[in-house]
C-alpha cells in the first residue's frame, strides 16, 4: 500500500509546471475530447508555452477532501521544478517535509534531512513514467497515458487528463488543470466529489535559478 501512496504523492507534483496566477477561476465542466499532440491543434501553442517555462518556484495551498471528514485538511508549502532534476515539494504546514519526484521515483525527506524512498507500485506500472510527462506538458508522452478533455472560455482554460489504464484511473482518478493564458492556477486530483485534492497556486516565478545549496537540499 505504501506503493499506492507513491502514486498519489506523485500527482501532487503535477503542479510543478504552474505559472503565476492572480486568482483561480475554475470552469465548471470538462470540455470535449481533444486529440493530444495533433498537428495544428488549437491547444498546441498552450502546451508549448507551458512546456517552455524552465525552472519554476511557487507557493501553494493544498486542500484534501476525505469522505469521512467534514472540512478539508489544509497544507501549505513551496514547489520547485528544476529542469532535469524533477520536482520538489516542501510542505511547511502542518509540518516541515519535503517530497522529491524525479525519474528515479519518489523520495520523502523529513526536517532532519533523513530520506526515505517510496518504491513504485507494480500494479500500476511506472507511475513516474506516466505522470512526469504531465509535469513537462510532453504531448507525445501524455497521449500514450491519458485522454484529454479541454475547454476554453476567453483566456481561461480547463484541461482534464483521464488515464487510459483502468488501474491507473482507479488510483489517480481524473487530473484537472485550470489556468489562464500561460499560467496554471489550480490543479485537482479527483476520484469523486468527496475524495479529491485541490492545489491552489498562490504565486509563482518562472525561469528562476536554484542555488547549489537549494539543489542539494530540495533535490537528490
Amino acid at each position, binding site marked *: *500500500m*505504501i506503493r*499506492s*501512496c*507513491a*502514486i*498519489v*504523492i506523485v500527482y*501532487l507534483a503535477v503542479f510543478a509546471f504552474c505559472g503565476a496566477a492572480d486568482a483561480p477561476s475554475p470552469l465548471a465542466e470538462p470540455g470535449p475530447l481533444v486529440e493530444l499532440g495533433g498537428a495544428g491543434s488549437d491547444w498546441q501553442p498552450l502546451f508549448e508555452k507551458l512546456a517552455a517555462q524552465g525552472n519554476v518556484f511557487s507557493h501553494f495551498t493544498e486542500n*484534501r477532501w*476525505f*469522505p*469521512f*471528514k*467534514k*472540512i478539508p*485538511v489544509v*497544507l501549505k508549502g513551496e514547489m520547485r521544478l528544476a529542469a532535469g532534476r524533477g520536482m520538489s515539494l516542501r*510542505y511547511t504546514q*502542518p*509540518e516541515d*517535509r519535503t*517530497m522529491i519526484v524525479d525519474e528515479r521515483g519518489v523520495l*520523502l525527506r523529513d526536517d*532532519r534531512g*533523513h530520506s*526515505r524512498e517510496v*518504491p*513504485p*507500485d*507494480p*500494479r*500500476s*506500472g*511506472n507511475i513516474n*513514467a506516466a505522470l512526469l510527462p504531465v509535469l513537462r506538458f510532453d504531448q507525445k508522452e501524455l497521449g500514450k497515458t491519458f485522454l484529454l478533455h479541454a475547454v476554453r472560455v476567453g483566456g481561461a482554460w480547463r484541461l482534464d487528463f483521464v488515464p487510459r489504464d483502468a488501474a491507473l484511473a482507479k488510483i489517480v482518478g481524473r487530473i484537472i488543470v485550470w489556468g489562464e493564458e500561460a499560467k496554471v492556477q489550480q490543479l485537482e486530483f479527483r476520484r469523486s466529489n468527496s*475524495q479529491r*485534492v485541490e492545489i491552489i497556486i498562490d504565486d509563482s516565478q518562472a525561469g528562476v535559478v536554484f542555488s547549489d545549496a537549494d539543489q542539494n537540499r530540495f533535490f537528490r
Partner: protein
Amino acid sequence: MSYFRQKWFVRLLLAVMALGGLAWLAHLDYNRKISTNVLDLIPTDERAPELALTRELASEEQSRVALFALDVRGIPARREAAVDAFVRTLRDSPAFDEVVALHDTAARDALGKQVFKQRLDLLLPGWLENNWKEYSAGDRHEPWADWLAERVAVRLQEYLGTPEALAFQEILPADPLLLLPKLIDSVQGLDATAPAQGDAPMLIWARTKGSPWKDEGQGPVFVAVRQAEAAALAAAPDAKLRWVSIGRIASASRERIEHELSGLNLLSLAAVMGIAALCLRRVDKALHLAPVMLGGLLGAWVATTLLFDRVHILVFVVGSLLGGVAVDYGFYLYLQPPAFPDEPYGAKVGRLIKPLLASALTTVIGFSLLLFSELPLIRQLGVFVSAGLLSALATALLWFAQVGTPFMQTRGFARARFTGDHPIVRRFALGLLLAGTLVALGGPWFLHWRDDIRELEIPTPALQTEAKDVRTLFGEDAQRTLFITRGNNVATARASLARFEAWHAHEHPGETLASLGNALPTLAAWQAVPERLGGFDMFVPSLRAALERHGFEAAAFAPFFSEWQTWRAAPRPEYEAMAGSLVAVLRGPLQMMASVGPGRCWFFSIVSHPPGREPPADTSTVNVSGLENMNQLFGRYRVSALRLSAWGLGLVGLSMAVLYGVWRGAKIFALPVGSCLFAFGLLGLTGQTLNLFHLLGAFLGVCLSHNYAIFTAENAARGEESPPSIRLSALTTAASFGILGLSKIPVVKALGATVALIVLTALVAVELVPLARRKSNRS
C-alpha cells in the same frame, strides 16, 4: 623363513593391502561422500547458535533461491508473453518448488489481506502497550479510555496531513487507529516486488526443490532453465536471460576443483618422479619410489573416507601434495648405502629405523593434534596426512624388503659437496645465515592476517559478474544490511527482535529497520491486552465523540466500530497459532523473511545502512549480509589452529628432547622452527596477507623440515655429510608443493607456497651451516 618365502610373503601382504584399500574406495558413493559445499567446512555443532542457524538457513533455504532477469525488448504484450512462457515452463518442472514473477503482486496482496484481517490481534497489542506507556507517564487525570479516544482522533487528524494519507484513505474508516499505515512504515523494503517498467528486465524469483550442493539441485535445474529459456525465446527471439543460483556457481566450482584435483595429482607425481629420475643413477630404478607414494595416498584416502561420513573435496586437493612427502621414506631407505657389502635388509632397517620413526612419528603426532580442531576440514587434513605418512612408511619398509638390491646410488651432482675452505665462502655462508636470522626475527612482526571464505573456491569471474548484476536488479545493495534474529519459539524470537530494534535505534539513530516480525506483538504485549482493555466499554462512545470534535464524520467509521465489537466478543487465538497463520500466507521472496516452525523461528530485518558493529549477544541477531560472519568465523578457527599447532610443535620439540637429549634435540628443532620463522618473515616483509591455510602450510613445512634436521643430525653423529636423500626429499617436496602454487584456489596456493618456501629454506640452511662452520671446526 627363507629370503624367497619372506619376499613372497611381503608381496602378498602388499597385494592384500592394496586390493583391500582399492576395494574400499571402489564401493564408495562419491556423490554422497565428497562435498564441495563451502558450508560443510563449518562444524554442524558450531558453538554459536546464531551461526549454526545461519549455516542451516544458507544451506537449506536461501541457497535454493534462483534469481532470473529476462531482457525482452518491445511492446508489453511481447514481454509478458515471453515471461509467462518462461515462468510456466519453470513451474511445470519438478526441479522447482515455487516460481514467482516479481511484477505479480499476488503474494503481497495475500499478505496485505491477511494482516488487515488479523490487524486487531496482530497490531493492537503493541499499539495498546505503547499508548499505555505514554498514558502512564502522564498525570492520568483523564480515564484511560477517554484519553486514548482523544489521542486517536488527534493522531488521525495529524496523519491526514502527510503524503501517505492519500494512499490509505480507503482503509481509514476501518482503521482509524492507524495500525496498518504504521506497520507499513516498519516493513517497507522487505518486498522485492518490482514493476515491469519500459524495457527494464523482467525479474523472476524461484526456489529449487533439491539442495544446490547436490546433483538433484543442479542438473535438473539447469535442464529446466534451458527449457524455460527456449520457451521464452519462442515467444520473443531476442530475449536474453541472466540468472544466478548457488547451484550454478557450486557446479562450476566443483567442475573446476575436480579438474584441478586430477591435474595437480598427476603433475605432482610427475614432478616427484622426474626429480627422482634426474638424480638417481638408473632412471628405471626410480620407479621403486612410486609404490611408496601410491601406498601413502591410498592409505590416506582409505583412512579419511573410513573415519569421516563426508569429506570436503579440498582435503583431496591439498592431499595431492602427500606424494612429495611420502616419497621421503623411500629416499631415506633406498638411497642409504649399506654399512658393509651384502648388509642384510633387516640390519639396514634396524640401523635406520630410529630416525625413520622419529621423523614419521613426530610428524604424525603433530598432525594428530589437528584432530582436536573445531574445523572439519582441519580434522580431515590431520587424518589424511597422518594416515598417509604412516602408510607411506609401512609401504616403503615392505616394498624394499622384497627388492633384490634395496640401494640406489644418486648421480654425482646430487651428492656433490663443496670441499674447499675459502674465507669468502665461509663469510658468504655466514652472511646468508645472518640475513636469514634477521628476516626470521624481524619479518613476522609485519604479518597481516585475514581469512576470506571466498578463497576456498575457484573464482568464476563471468558467473560472478552475472550474479552481481542480477542481484543488483533484485535490490541487493551495499547500502543495506540484512540481519537475522532467531529464537527457539515465536515468543523468544520476537522478544529478541524487540531488543535488536531498541539497540539499532540507539546505535543508528534515524536509520530505518524493516522486519516482518513487526507485524507480530511481543508475548508481553499480547498477554497484557486483557488488562489494558479492562473497563474499556466506554472507548467506543468516547472515540465517536472525539472524532466528531475533530471534524470527522463518526458514522463514516462504522466498519471499525462493527469489527471492534465482533473482535471483542470473539475468543482470542493462541499466540503461536496467530503467528503461524500470518506466516502461512507468505509466498515467494516474502517467504524468506520469517519462519515460525518449532525450534527454528527467525525474522529477517533489512536496515538502511552498510554493516557496522555486530549486535549484542542478547539480541540473538547476526548480520547475514555477504560473508563477513563466515570470515570472522574462519578467523576464529585460525586462532584455534594456531593454538593446536603450537601444542603440536611443543610435542615435536619435547619428543626430540626425549630422543636426542635437550641440547642436541634443541639444535635439531632449531632448523624447522627457524625455517618457518624465515618463511613468515619473508612473507611479512613482502606485504603478503596470510590466512588459516598459510598457518596449516607452516605446520606441515615444520614437520617436513624437521625430518631433514633429524637425518642431518644422525649423519653428523657418525661424522658423515648430510645424506643426499635430504636434497632429493626437499626438492621433491618443494616441487610437489610448488605445483600446488599453480592452483586457482587461493588457499591451496597459499598452503603450497608456504610449504615449498619452508622446505627450501631448510634445505639451504642444511647446506649452509657446514660451510659456515668449516674453519672453526678445523681450528
